[in-house]
């Protein structure tokens, strides 16, 4: 649920990029930061390991303007994708308003996508949240690798694997090139709006 500060009239929307290790979660944020920084005017914070992997999380906050008398602030987080950092993932998921699941389209990591989605499902359950009710967008990343002759899972296969039950919006993407990165972000923010509006109304009534 979005955090509303009645004193400062600020609303914070927390979006978490989730998915298997090396899937492109950080690359999504890096692209957003490098391409739109002149408009969002923010700083990205990253904590990485020796091998350039996300250790704790990446964080990119920005304002999107004033609506209904409140300043809307969006906070983008990534989680470390490596299996061993599950406690960190769980902490980052706390109070999440929307999730982008960044799946890796490479055939060789098919199972990692499934395991990571299952892990998201379980971690959300720990907060009494259902993966079927949280605003969620699937992003099938690394589609550009087809040009390099790398065997990829087709969009249909990925849909069947990951989205048969969820039935949420999904985008084929290339975070490295920026293809559908902004679209994914816009979609997930839009999906958080109905609940945000409800909460804002309650706030006004109170």
């Amino acid at each position, binding site marked *: 649920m979005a955090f509303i500060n009645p004193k400062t009239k600020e609303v914070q929307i927390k979006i978490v990029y989730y998915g298997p290790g*090396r899937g492109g979660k950080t690359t999504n944020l890096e*692209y*957003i930061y*490098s*391409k*739109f920084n002149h*408009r*969002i005017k923010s700083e990205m914070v990253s904590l*990485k*390991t*020796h*091998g*350039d*992997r996300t*250790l*704790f999380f990446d964080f990119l906050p920005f304002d*999107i*303007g004033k*609506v*209904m008398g409140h300043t*809307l602030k969006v906070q983008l987080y990534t989680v470390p994708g490596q*299996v*061993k*950092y599950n*406690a*960190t993932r*769980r*902490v980052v998921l*706390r109070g999440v308003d929307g999730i982008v699941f960044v799946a*890796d389209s*490479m055939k060789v*990591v098919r199972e990692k996508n499934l395991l990571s989605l299952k892990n998201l499902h379980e971690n959300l359950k*720990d*907060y009494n949240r259902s993966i079927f009710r949280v605003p969620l967008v699937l992003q099938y990343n690394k589609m*550009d*690798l087809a*040009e*390099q*002759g*790398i065997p990829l899972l087709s969009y249909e296969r990925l849909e069947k694997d990951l989205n048969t039950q969820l039935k949420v919006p999904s985008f084929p993407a290339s975070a*490295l*090139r*920026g293809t559908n990165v*902004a679209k994914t*972000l*816009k979609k997930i*923010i*839009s999906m958080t*709006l*109905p609940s945000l*509006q409800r909460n804002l109304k309650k706030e006004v009534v109170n």
Partner: protein
Amino acid sequence: MEKNENTFTEKVESILDELFAEDDETAETVEESAHVGYYPLRFLKATVLSIDWEITDEVMGRFIDQVERLKEAHQEDKTILPLLQMLGSTGQHIRIFKENAHPTALKVLKSLYLSLEKVMSETAPSEVEKSRLLFREIRKFKALKAQIVEGNLALANRVKPAVVQAASPVEETAPVVTTSDDGDGNAILAAIAELKQFVETEIRQLREEIQSLRTSA
């Protein structure tokens, strides 16, 4: 009421459209750098991209082979050869240390590759630009080397001589964290435990590295 809801959503969506409109030249730059136009580098590029997902002996071996092959073909070129030599050395460092390689090593490797791609493209830059590019890469490469040495020395001064233990993967040694209690405090403690475990493993591996350097000296 429904109209109000629509207005709210529409307003935010229109702000988002403005904020994230992709109509400036940045998109071109990204596309351009990802463009594979020069055939001799096609395989090397695929390998450089592979390094981004998984650093394995197989990938790094393939990378070194391709660099060696290109070195033979460009022995006379005063810009391409040094770039390839630096690519090879950086690749060797990553091959040896894999995920524990210096954090900027991958960035330096990618930057070297992109410069190589520019120099070898059909629309190659002028000689002056080539030299400028080369010097820039040499500076980055030297800085990386200095950082690696500096990091090792700093650690050697900090860490007391200790019996070197065999490194074991974090997954195997990680303490079992109880998460049955869903309280935030426990979750944060578990995250800190992961972090602590990671730092300990990094230090252990660096100790081994120092020890092996001492032995070989």
